[in-house]
């Protein structure tokens, strides 16, 4: 179970802007630790975002996405009070879902 995400969703002029910060190491699998052993790859590889019940974005990520990833995008529609739900899954099968309310 990962740490909580920080999700911000604001609606303005009929467009909802969604900004998400995720807590994840995003280990490339190319790095060596102090003892010289390769640190195994460990990264978020799927992200799904929903506005209300509608899936608005599905992402596939590789290890080239930065540690503690940030994602921002915009969706037509949505209004204050709507729910935004973001789920990530990493390559070890761990997953996390967080929800925020559009303001």
């Amino acid at each position: 179970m990962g740490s909580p995400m920080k999700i911000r969703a604001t609606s303005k002029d009929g467009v909802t802007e969604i900004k998400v910060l995720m807590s994840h190491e995003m280990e490339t699998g190319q790095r060596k630790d102090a003892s010289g052993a390769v640190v195994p790859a460990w990264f978020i590889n799927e992200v799904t975002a929903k506005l209300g019940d509608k899936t608005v974005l599905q992402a596939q990520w590789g290890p080239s996405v930065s540690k503690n990833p940030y994602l921002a995008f915009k969706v037509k529609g949505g209004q204050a009070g709507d729910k935004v739900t973001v789920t990530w899954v990493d390559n070890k099968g761990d997953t996390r879902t967080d929800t925020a309310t559009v303001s």
Partner: protein
Amino acid sequence: MNQHQTQRRQVLRAGGGLAVLGALAAAGIVLPRQALAEWNKQAFDAKTLDDAMKAMGAEAPANSGDVQIVASDIAENGAVVPVQAVSKLPKTEKIAILVEKNPSMLAASFDLGPETLPEVTARIKMGQTSNVIVVVKADGKFYMASKEIKVTLGGCGG
């Protein structure tokens, strides 16, 4: 799909992870590709730009002024390079960000819903100065743009 995923994950957890997954795959119960959802392993593992494009189904996309990369010309640190990928093309359904000189070239690919505006912001790692390439799929066709971003060496450590 979500429910399906969850069930699969529970199977995985109960069974102790990848070893069991391998066993299940060998027994023909779970296909490895299925277990990794639809994650495009071939594209993420591609060693050349052509292979990555092929794996995305985007052979030789045309350069387009309607695909824009909003990013600074220089990154003070390659560990975090903010990139905004924008498409002005109608019916944009997919946006992908690639880094030509990274060991894993494909950084991220986004499938957009019909209501989602064709502009996404993400942060990527860059091992060195390189072209960043954005590939867009709009109305069934692929387009691209590329921009060089310099990665500088900072701080005292050098």
